[in-house]
């Protein structure tokens, strides 16, 4: 059976104020439970696409729906509620460096825990317990009170994954989650994202530049070029030969220098 549509992108274009057209009438449907890899050269619009889904970027045209609710026209409380449904993982981790690991995970709950107390870094006991559980899931429960910037890159990204989990989302938007990590560490981080998809049943949209990672983790792939979807299909279809067809002979998909 075809499941619920988690993310529906219809005819979305984005023109930045400087005139760059980053997305050009992109349409795309992601069913609940899919692990969709977004492939493309640097500047092809991967980040813009993912960031449009939680409205860190405002699309210029078209609509995006999250579980049937329009993100593009939501404002205020409604927008915040929709953002709560989609957790984002960034290439640069984007942790609050001067705060503890535990506090960083707890910020994932800020969508549902409001009020003055949360501004004073005091969270309800059940949320703290849940944050510790999330940290345990990524194997960092012993680092809860370390400062975030004291951790290695791979560990920081795992904290970011715990923060995403803390958010209790239904969709995970991962924008090149392993691009700034040592190749040896990539699988250790990717496996946690895979677990979100497999064990939690979360829908994952993940931009990647490494063909090996794509074939290993994704259930479906879309390829972007210059803001357009140029190919779409199962990972097995994305051979080196096809990629050379799409991106030209110079694109080496196992080097992040080319595809970042």
């Amino acid at each position, binding site marked *: 059976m075809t499941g619920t549509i988690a993310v529906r992108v219809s005819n979305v274009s984005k023109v930045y104020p400087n005139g760059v057209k980053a997305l050009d009438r992109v349409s795309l449907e992601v069913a609940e439970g899919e692990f969709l890899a977004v492939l493309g050269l640097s500047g092809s619009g991967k980040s813009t696409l993912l960031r449009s889904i939680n409205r860190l970027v405002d699309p210029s045209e078209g609509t995006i729906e999250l579980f049937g609710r329009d993100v593009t026209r939501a404002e205020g409380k409604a927008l915040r509620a929709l953002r709560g449904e989609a957790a984002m993982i960034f290439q640069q981790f984007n942790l609050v460096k*001067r705060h503890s690991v535990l506090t960083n995970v707890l910020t994932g709950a800020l969508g549902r825990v*409001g009020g003055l107390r949360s501004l004073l870094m005091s969270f309800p006991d059940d949320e703290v317990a849940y944050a510790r559980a999330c940290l345990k899931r990524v194997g960092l429960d012993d680092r809860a009170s370390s400062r975030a910037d004291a951790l290695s890159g791979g560990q920081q990204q795992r904290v970011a994954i715990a923060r995403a989990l803390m958010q209790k989302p239904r969709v995970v938007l991962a924008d090149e989650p392993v691009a700034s990590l040592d190749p040896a560490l990539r699988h250790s981080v990717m496996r946690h994202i895979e677990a979100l998809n497999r064990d939690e049943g979360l829908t994952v949209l993940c931009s990647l530049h490494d063909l090996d990672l794509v074939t290993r983790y994704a259930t479906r792939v879309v390829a972007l070029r210059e803001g357009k979807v140029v190919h779409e299909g199962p990972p097995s279809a994305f051979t080196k030969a096809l990629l050379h067809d799409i991106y030209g002979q110079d694109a080496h998909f196992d080097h992040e220098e080319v595809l970042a």
Partner: protein
Amino acid sequence: MKRCLREGGDVKPVARLTQRLTARGTALLVDALLVASVLLMAQFLWLCLFVPVAGTPLPSARDVLERLSYGALSGVAVLLAAAWQLWDRSPGTAFAAPRGHSAPGKPWDETFSGFFLLIFVELTFFTGWLVTEVDLHQLFTNFHKAEGILRGLLHPSGAVLFEGLILLLQTIYLAFMATAFAIPIAFVMSFMAARNLTRKTAKARFLYVFVRSVMNFARAVEPLVWALVFISWVGIGPFAGVLALFIHSVASLVKLYSEQIESIDPGPMEAITGTGASLLAVLRYGIVPQIVPPFLSYTIYRWDINVRMSTIIGFVGGGGIGYILKPRVDLGEWGEVGTLVLLIAVTVWALDVISARVRERIV
């Protein structure tokens, strides 16, 4: 072939000749002006420095200006300019040449704009000398008049030491209170004055322009003037000084704070926004942790500046040590002035060292 002949060669030789002559003439004029201004400037300096006017012991700049040999130097300038023309790379030639106004990639002294800049700087200096009534003659001959003051300053009297220490304490507290009042207000306003936070909506952009303008105004008005305003408002005394420094501190801190906010890493802010957090939570977790250390550093620096400023504020009645300094200056009691100046100097120096140390630790 016909067209080529027509454009390149024999048509209107007279016109081409006049064109050439005007170019030469313009070049000569520009060079002559340039050389003349340099020569006049040299003579001006010479007269000011080395040739006092007979009868009047102090030649004013205006006198000197009247004694310049305009005619002779202009003649010399024309001759020199003509010689320069033959050398063919004079600024005048560059000016008169069709595309010579600004030639990118050329050394500055071969372009007209380079020389224009030179003349401009030179004329500014020349004008400045007149406007500020620079008088080196006085400077070098009348030292004895200030000797009394300097001797007094070097022999401080103990008479005002106690009173001075008390008021010094008041000065430090005055500066402290002004800073303390300014911190929360500047903190809140700095978010409204940060460009990166006020781009999205028209309301936010208006807020940015509004806060920035008000702050620029408040900063442009000297604390001394604010002191006069508040002295007539709340009366002579340290509180007027506190208020004056408060206004100025808010304005300066908003500028420094908001520039700091503009330079933050937007990543954490986006991450917190993405969780669906409220605006306050985004500011609290996405921005505040990044700006606390520099804010502390700026704030200590501001206190340091306020201590310095409050001595001046005291001169007009804003409390603190400046308050008792003024009458002693007026009465010429240089020994007591010396004591007070010494107290201020030591405090400012100590605060400088301490604040530098603390700020080093923080950042």
